[in-house]
C-alpha cells in the first residue's frame, strides 16, 4: 500500500520538451511517406483500439531492399512523427535491417538495453516518450503495423 502511495504521489513531472522535441514536431508538421506507391509488396493496417489512432502502411521492394514506404492514417503528433521517421529510415534497408530498427525502438520504449549498434537517426528523438507511458503505444503503432505487414500480409498486391 505504502509503496503504491509513494509510487502514485511522488513521480516527478517529466518535461513536455522531452516529449515534443523539435524534430518530432517537424515530422508531425511535414510527415514523410505521403506519396502513393505504384506497387505494394507488403501492406497492413494498424489501430490502437483504446484511442482510435489508425495507420495504413505499404511497402514497395526493389532488389531485396525497401524501395518506398507509404503511410497514412489518423493520429496524434507522436504516432504521426513516428510513422514519418519510419518512412524516412526504412527506405533503402533490407527487411532484416528494418526489423532491427523496429526492435531497437521497442527496447528503447520499454527501457531494455539493446547492445546492437545501428544508425538510429531521428529515432533518438522518441526516447522522451518513455517518460509518458500512455503515449508509448502511439510511438510504437507504425512499427508494430510494419511488423504485421511482414508476417501477416506478405506480398499483398493492392491495385
Amino acid at each position, binding site marked *: 500500500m505504502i509503496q503504491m502511495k509513494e509510487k502514485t504521489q511522488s*513521480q516527478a513531472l517529466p518535461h513536455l520538451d522531452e516529449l515534443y522535441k523539435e524534430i518530432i514536431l517537424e515530422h508531425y508538421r511535414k510527415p514523410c511517406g505521403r506519396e502513393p506507391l505504384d506497387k505494394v509488396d507488403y501492406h497492413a493496417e494498424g489501430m490502437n483500439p483504446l*484511442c*482510435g489512432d489508425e495507420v495504413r502502411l505499404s511497402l514497395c521492394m526493389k532488389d531485396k531492399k525497401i524501395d518506398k514506404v507509404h503511410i497514412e492514417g*489518423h493520429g496524434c503528433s507522436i504516432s504521426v512523427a513516428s510513422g514519418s521517421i519510419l518512412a524516412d529510415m526504412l527506405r533503402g534497408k533490407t527487411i532484416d535491417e528494418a526489423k532491427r530498427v523496429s526492435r531497437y525502438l521497442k527496447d528503447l520504449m520499454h527501457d531494455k538495453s539493446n547492445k546492437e549498434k545501428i544508425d538510429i537517426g531521428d529515432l533518438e528523438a522518441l526516447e522522451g516518450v518513455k517518460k509518458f507511458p500512455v503515449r508509448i503505444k*502511439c510511438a510504437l503503432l507504425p512499427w508494430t503495423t510494419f511488423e504485421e505487414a511482414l508476417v501477416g500480409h506478405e506480398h499483398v498486391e493492392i491495385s
Partner: protein
Amino acid sequence: MFDIEKIRKDFSILERKIWDDKLLVYLDNAATTQKPKVVINALVEYYENYNANIHRGVHKLAEEATSAYENVRAKVKSFLSCDEASEVIFTRNTTESINLLAYSLGESLNDGDEVLLTEMEHHSNIIPWYLLRGRKKINIKFIPITDQYELDYEKLEKLIVKGTKIISITHKSNVLGTVNDIKKIAKLAKDNGSILIVDAAQSAPHMKINFTDLGCDFLSFSSHKMCGPTGVGVLVGKKELLEKMPPFLGGGEMIRKVTFEDFTLNDVPWKFEAGTPNIADVIAFGVAIEYIQKIGLENIHKHEIELTKYALDKLSKFTFLKIYGSSDASKRAGIITFSNPVVHPHDIATIIDQDGVAIRAGHHCAQPLMKRLGVSATARASFYFYNTEEEIDIFVSVLQKAFDYFEVGACKELKGESKERVSK
C-alpha cells in the same frame, strides 16, 4: 442552493496533487466520477462489521448483509420512481445490463426483425446488438442525427416499421451532451408495439429521471458514474416483461429448485442475478444514491448548466476550436467535446495533464459517431456538481498553453478546417 466548498470536502481526491505540486482538476466525469467519503466509508463499514454472503444465511451477519443489499433496490426505486423494488436488477455496469437484454429479449426475435439504434450510441449499446445479429438474422438500423447534433425525429418516425421489435437509445449522448426526447419516442414505440430500451448512463447521474413517466420499458445506468463504486450497474424493467423473459446467467440465487434433470426459476429480480452478487458495492451504491439525492438532482443539473455556460463562454475565445453539440448550454449540460486540426486531442490531453487537468481524448467509445462527425478523435471535458468556475479557469488557461505549444492560432491557414491534419 448548495455549498460547493462543503461538498468538495467530501471528496479527498480533490486535494490530490498531481506531479508533486499540481492540484487535480478532474474534468473526466463522463468517464467516471469521484466518490464521497460516505460511500468509501460504507465499504469499510461493511467489510469491518457485517461482511457475509447473502440470501442463504441464517446467521446474524448474513441477515444484516442481506437486508442492507435488498434495501438498495428500494433506494433505486425511489431514485427512479419505478413501480416496484423488484423491478430493479443489479448488474456490473450499463454494458452488462444491455447485454442481458440483448441475450434475453433476443431469444424471442425472429429472422427479419429490426433493432433500431441511433448514430450517437456508445459502443455498449451497439455491440450487444451486433452480437445478437451474429446469432439471429436481424437487421440493425441507425437513426441519423441532424447537423444541430440532435436526433432527426422526422427520419426516426419513418424508421419505426412493423418489424421494429426493439428500439434502444441513449438518453444523453456521452459526446454531444444532447438529451433525447424519450417520452416522444416512447409514444411512437408503444403505438408500434416495439420495446424501448434507454441507456441512461449519462443522464441518471445528472438529472431527475422518472421511469414511469418516461414511458420506456427498460433503463440502465452505472454506479461508478454517479458517485458509487465500480462494479455495479442497474437494469430497471417493467415487471410483466421481466417475468416473461428467459434468464441470462445461470447459477446460485436465480433458481428455485434444481434436480439432475432440470430446474425451476426464482422470481424477478433474483432470476437475473446469478452467483454471489457484488454485495459491498451495491450497499455502498445505495449510500451514493442517498448522497446525490441529498444534494438534489435539480441542483446538480442547474450547477452543471451554469458551469457549461461559463466554460463555453470562456472557450469562445479559441476561435480555431471546433465544438460539437448545441451552443445552448442548457441542452448539453456537463459535456463539452472539441477538436482542432492542428493539435491532436491526445496531445492536448497530455499537455494539460502536466498541470493536473484531467480530460479525455479519443473516440469516447463512439466510433460511429466520430465517423459521422468527420473526425477520428476529439477531446472532452465533462463536469459534475463538485466542479467550480475556478477549475474551468485553470482548464482554459492550460488549454492556451497547449495551443501555444503547437502554435495553434498562428497557423492561420488551418483555422476552421475540420478535417484531421494527417487523414486522407
